[in-house]
């Protein structure tokens, strides 16, 4: 039996209005499970209930109905919280502390042994690219830097389960790519990651499984490959091909393989690739 890191069953969350009246249904009968070592992406438009779900999982909100188990226990247990790293939608930092001081403080809160703190902090700062700016107060950081500091807070803790709420929101393509690489790095190290996003490409790049949320419900779930691959349809990428001879190729494919060419397009790079290549070229 596969080990589930997160198990959510029939979760319901109402936000109460004035006088305790039930007003808004933010999460509606939602069930999901995340297996050990997988990256699970929650996709959904703004207001679909992603952040509410993340807060419920982290114990910042309480369920109206249903249950949430992390590593088989309630998130209220401190021993469970030790194993979880959380990056909220915005990294809310103490603006008067530098990155180094922030990480030292959070290392103390996360019970990181004193002798390991220095190394872990330096490593995390290198990974998120803030080592040079480590002495600056975080109030001078850009949004992207604050976000990366938020991620570094998670890295020093070295948790088994990482929950990220819109981790790339407000970041430029380079910052966004770096965060995706960090998520992939976490996966390589066997960590379980749950993250929410409304950016489809982002989810496609890093997730094993996804769930699509709409009006508080999980309306579609599945493995990325199951959801994205079309049955019996393949793309052939050719180099040095003379496009003038397209009909000859189509005939060969039809005759020898009984395959019909549906479309012929020139390969394109993504805008993100072009942007990153250009910036890197000019930077070097």
């Amino acid at each position, binding site marked *: 039996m596969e080990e589930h890191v997160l198990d959510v069953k029939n979760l319901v969350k109402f936000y109460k209005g004035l006088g305790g009246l039930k007003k808004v249904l933010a999460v509606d009968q939602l069930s999901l499970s995340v297996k050990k070592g997988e990256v699970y992406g929650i996709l959904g438009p703004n207001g679909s209930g992603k952040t509410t779900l993340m807060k419920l999982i982290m114990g*910042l909100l309480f369920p109206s109905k249903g249950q949430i188990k992390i590593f088989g226990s309630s998130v209220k247990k401190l021993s469970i919280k030790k194993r979880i790293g959380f990056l909220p939608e915005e990294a809310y930092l103490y603006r*008067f502390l530098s990155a180094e001081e922030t990480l030292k403080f959070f290392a103390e809160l996360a019970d990181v042994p004193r002798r390991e703190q220095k190394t872990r902090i330096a490593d995390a700062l290198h990974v998120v690219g803030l080592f040079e700016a480590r002495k600056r107060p975080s109030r001078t950081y850009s949004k992207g830097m604050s976000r990366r500091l938020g991620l570094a807070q998670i890295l020093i803790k070295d948790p088994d389960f990482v929950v990220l709420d819109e981790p790339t929101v407000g970041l430029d393509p380079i910052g966004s790519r770096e965060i995706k690489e960090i998520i992939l790095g976490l996966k390589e190290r066997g960590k379980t990651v749950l993250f929410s996003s409304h950016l489809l490409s982002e989810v496609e790049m890093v997730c094993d499984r996804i769930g699509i949320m709409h009006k508080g419900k999980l309306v579609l779930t599945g493995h990325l490959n199951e959801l994205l691959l079309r049955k019996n349809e393949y793309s052939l990428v050719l180099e040095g091909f003379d496009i003038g001879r397209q009909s000859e190729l189509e005939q060969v494919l039809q005759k020898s393989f009984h395959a019909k060419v549906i479309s012929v397009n020139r390969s394109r790079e993504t805008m993100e690739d072009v942007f990153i290549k250009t910036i890197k070229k000019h930077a070097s």
Partner: protein
Amino acid sequence: MILSRKTFSLARITSLEIIRLNLFWVLAAFSGIIVIFTKTFSVYSTNIQINMVQDIGLVLIAGVNTFLVVILVAWILPREVENKTIYGFFTQSVRKVDYVAGKFFGFAFILFLMTFFLSFLLFVYVWLSFDVRAYHIFTVALFSYIANVILLSITILSSTVLTGSVNIFFGLFVYMMGSFNQSLEYLVERSMEIPLLKAGLITVLKIIPDFDRLNIRDEVLAGIPIHWEELWSYSMGSLLLYGGVCLITAGIVFSRREF
């Protein structure tokens, strides 16, 4: 163990936050300047001057600390909830009571620093100006410190449910009621005619700590005898009672609150 190592990490960061605020240093410098210049503006005889300098200095020590509690503490804690900085703690393995206690000790340390700095300055100034070693300055300042720590614990509790601006008014209200507690009780006893309202108001006044009782400035400066045993037991009892009840309740409120 009631308090953990994390409580002290939180207390350290809380103190650091206040120390890195420009307002803290402006307040310390302003108070220091007033203490030093009090004598310059007075035209009275030396004996009156000694008392006046001490009186103004001690009022300042109590006032600056009350200002720190009512304005800064009352504002900083709700701001952590509003800014969601609190997510950083409550998603870690930090007990709510550790957070509350950490904040309490951090602020209490700042009050101690300010009280000690200003009373030491006042002591040295009185010594150098009048050749009088007024050790009682430290005693009076200590009791005003205890009063402010009690106010601090109440403000921390109210921070768990009130917004920053409302909390500032609440802190001021408690301070004012506590400072005129006995006079208000006397007034209510004499003037209120509706028994239920009278009983209600008297209960409220009894719940609010009697800060006036911890203000021994006039008695000390006028040489009026003080019942020290009674004062010590009242101050320590109040400190333990209000501190304990407020911090535990604040921890419980936080653990039942959504963020």
